[in-house]
């Protein structure tokens, strides 16, 4: 039985992505308005959390794809041979 889902309409996906970009911007703007209580100095840098999260994820994926995978990937029957 075929069903139509909300993401079968490309417009909805675009709306979702637009919402993400806007929310990212809002979270950055909100940071500038509040007074900061922090433990570490680096937390005071503007957009520290956003950039750390972004860079972490990109690094994570790149390291996993280009360094870890070539080292550890084997055929599915590796242990059965």
């Amino acid at each position: 039985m075929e069903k139509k889902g909300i993401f079968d309409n490309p417009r909805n996906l675009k709306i979702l992505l637009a919402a993400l970009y806007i929310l990212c911007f809002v979270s950055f703007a909100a940071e500038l308005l509040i007074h900061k209580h922090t433990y570490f100095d680096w937390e005071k840098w503007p957009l520290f959390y956003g950039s750390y999260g972004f860079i972490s994820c990109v690094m994570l994926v790149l390291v996993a794809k280009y360094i870890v995978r070539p080292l550890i990937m084997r055929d599915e029957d590796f242990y059965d041979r």
Partner: protein
Amino acid sequence: MIDNFPPFAVFYLGSLLVLLTKGRIRNTILVAVPVISFILLTNVDAGKYLEYSFLDYTLNLYRVDKLSSVFGYAFLIISVAIAFYGFHVKNNKEYVIGLIYAGSGLGAVFAGDLLTLYFFWEVMTIASTFIIWNGKTKDCIQAGFRYFLFHLAGGLILLFGIILYISETGSTEFVHMGWTDLATGLIMLGFGVNAAWPLLHTWLVDAYPKGSFFGTVMLTVFTTKTAIYTLARGFSGEELLIVVGAVMTAFPIFYAVLVNDLRKVLSYSLINQLGFMVAGIGVGTTLAINGAVGQAFVHIMFKSLLFMGMGAVFYRTGKINATDLGGLYKYMPWTTVFTIVGALTISTFPFFSAFVTKSMILSSIAHEGYGIVWLTLVFASAGVLHHSGIKIPYFAFFSHDSGLRPKEAPWNMLVAMGFLAGLNILLGIYPAPLINILPYEVSYNPYTLGHVIYQYQLLLFSILAFTLLLRSGVYPAEIRAINLDFDYFYRKAGTIFMKFEDNYILPCFNFFKKLFFESIPSLLNYLTKDPVKLIYRVLEDEPMGDDGIKMQGWLIGWSVFVVTVFLVIYLLVFMHF
């Protein structure tokens, strides 16, 4: 008296009853067992009950205090959910073992002394092995054996440590001990095996993804969280644990990006979550312990929810690899929603339960000034969002259309998942009930404006990274493959040992077996046979009748006698030199 009836006894009793019943009666018992235990537990005052004497040691079957109660409550709440989750499973076997497994987990956290703890610890190992074997494929059986060997080794290390500890201190009581000498070191290592410490973690990612859709949910709750309890009880404030915990949070996320089997992704993510708890225990301040214990509590709720979601997908489609799944949100909408709630919780979105407890851990680490550990943990938080928060729901329910057209999960599974999803949201919005049962009284408010904004910023930009990587095609495609983990070395060592045994040890044994049980006896037989009768028989050509049987018996007797003589000579020689 009835108030002091310990939960494990209710579970063991329930297990017996489940063995004898089926259908609705069985399901009623399954729900009644944890509910009754819960009521009993809430009515019992803190203290020690059911003390008894064994080999001149005072043992204590039921110790109730704040630390053990948190784990007790969590185990009982999740038992209700798991009971619902498997209502439609006709076969009683998994439930019978499951109740013993859960009961032993409860027995272990309420055990007041080390020997009782060890007993329940080992029963858990055996019960959980049977749950893995219930998956029934060849893979499950083999993984079950590996799992069992691993825990047997861990259990022996623990037992050795306990024996040393008791002989040194003369006390069996399980209290805070800290790593001071060999004995306590071995005990900590024994706990560490079950807490899936780095390099000792391979049993978890090997065995957990191989259970049945239902068995795996049970497995993920009890073994590791009991280990977290024991570490919190015995080794809080042990600085080594901070480092161990930080490593545990970081390394599994690289695997989680690459692994294809979604239950394996969750297994790696489980280690990552345990890492946060272990690190919190290592810090050891009141806030940190509260955070670690609270994290264990909510982790039981949201991780089971995620495993239940993937279990439902596995149950309905028979597939669990990211490469085979996708587009299911149209066909399993409720499962999708509940899994997303679990995903949002594990990613520590504000207003979901884990945000409260994980913030406690991170704040306590920052408060003590462990900068690098803090950065590692925040990096790992972004990683969690990435693999559990996004990868799990995205590849199972969205992504490309896999062509699968399954039915929605059965109602009882949805009830179980809905209950847990609701609980995670409730405790996120109104955390007071959880904070009240934590071991220490600490005032902590995670919902400051700054903290919430920072958290959203971290998460939103991580989602942004995932989206951009995916849309640009940089994100690695899932591939059907094995990703080697440290168990490569265990398996390699095992294979080498078996080869050595086959080529050198077995032939040696074979030679002695032949010599003592075939060559020497047959020679003796030949020599001790009555030569006259033999010749007479040959000449008369008489068939061997009853007499022949008697003669055989007589010969066996002779052989045994001769072997005994050999043994005696051997012993005498051995004792003299």
